[in-house]
């Protein structure tokens, strides 16, 4: 027996504080996690997806780069393949444009219209964009093509989520 004995009252209050503390933590921790969740999500949105394109192989001629990521559709998870038109501009800077037409969402192709070479061409309603993605006035699209943010890692090109530009 030690000199200062723990009284029944003290013992009970220690036990209650301990157990109560655990219970409070059990309730509060999920709540804190939920509150913090949106912050963690925002980080995930900025994810970059690897492509098979080597940065060194890029020229000033736009090439189609396909990349695949997972997308969840309700309970169905699927691989989504998207494309980008990638080239190096005159200053040697990489430009990655989304192939989705800003009119109604068709896929645009590079240099496929014989009458208007060196342009992006939408076969659906003959919309056109210049090489930097700016919409040609007088054709249906009203905004320039979206731009992918990109990163270079180990010599390969990584693409992020396409972002719209300000109207031309």
């Amino acid at each position, binding site marked *: 027996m030690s000199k200062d004995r723990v009284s029944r009252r003290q013992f009970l209050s220690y036990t209650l504080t301990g157990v109560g503390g655990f219970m409070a933590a059990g309730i509060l921790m999920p709540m804190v996690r939920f509150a913090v969740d949106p912050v963690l999500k925002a980080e995930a949105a900025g994810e970059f997806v690897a492509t098979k394109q080597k940065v060194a192989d890029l020229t000033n001629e736009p090439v189609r780069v396909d990349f695949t990521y997972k997308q969840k559709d309700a309970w169905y998870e699927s691989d989504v*393949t998207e494309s980008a038109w990638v080239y190096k501009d005159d200053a040697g800077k990489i430009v990655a444009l989304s192939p989705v037409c800003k*009119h*109604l*969402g*068709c*896929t645009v192709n590079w240099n496929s219209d014989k009458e208007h070479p060196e342009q992006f061409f939408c*076969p*659906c*309603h003959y919309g056109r964009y210049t090489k930097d993605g700016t919409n040609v006035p007088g054709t249906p699209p009203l905004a320039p093509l979206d731009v992918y943010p990109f990163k270079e890692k180990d010599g390969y090109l990584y693409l992020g989520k396409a972002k719209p530009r300000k109207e031309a």
Partner: protein
Amino acid sequence: MKWIPQDVETYSNAKEYVDTAVVPLYSVTVGGGIKQSAAAAEFITLLTTYLEKQFTGRILLFPPFTYLENEQSERVVTDLQNWEVNIFEAGFKHVFYITSDLEWRGREAQLEGSVIWLPSIPLEHMNDPQKLTMIDSQVKQLLTLFTQKWHENE
């Protein structure tokens, strides 16, 4: 545009731009040919989905027209003609049927829309990138077919 509420709404607001209907035709067998039937459906589904991605702004991809393989030919044709009437009445100018059922080649004359017949390629042993390149090359040929048809009527 796909057969989902968001896309159908876009279609309703931009009807003058969406003048082409694409209807996949699925033949269904429950007996001996069940596997081929499923393989053909998978192939046509992938193909039309990819086609829709290329031409989102000008085509509306309908839910597939499905019929039993052993159904009487006249009945199937009458049913599809009925679809056709409704589709044209809704304001579409072009209708494309995409199928891998050989029967439709003989029935094309009875329809106003164009039947595109493609031999089904078994996809079950391919991995995803292989599937993609294969479908991509098939759809490339369809693209020219579609643009040609559009040019004819302009």
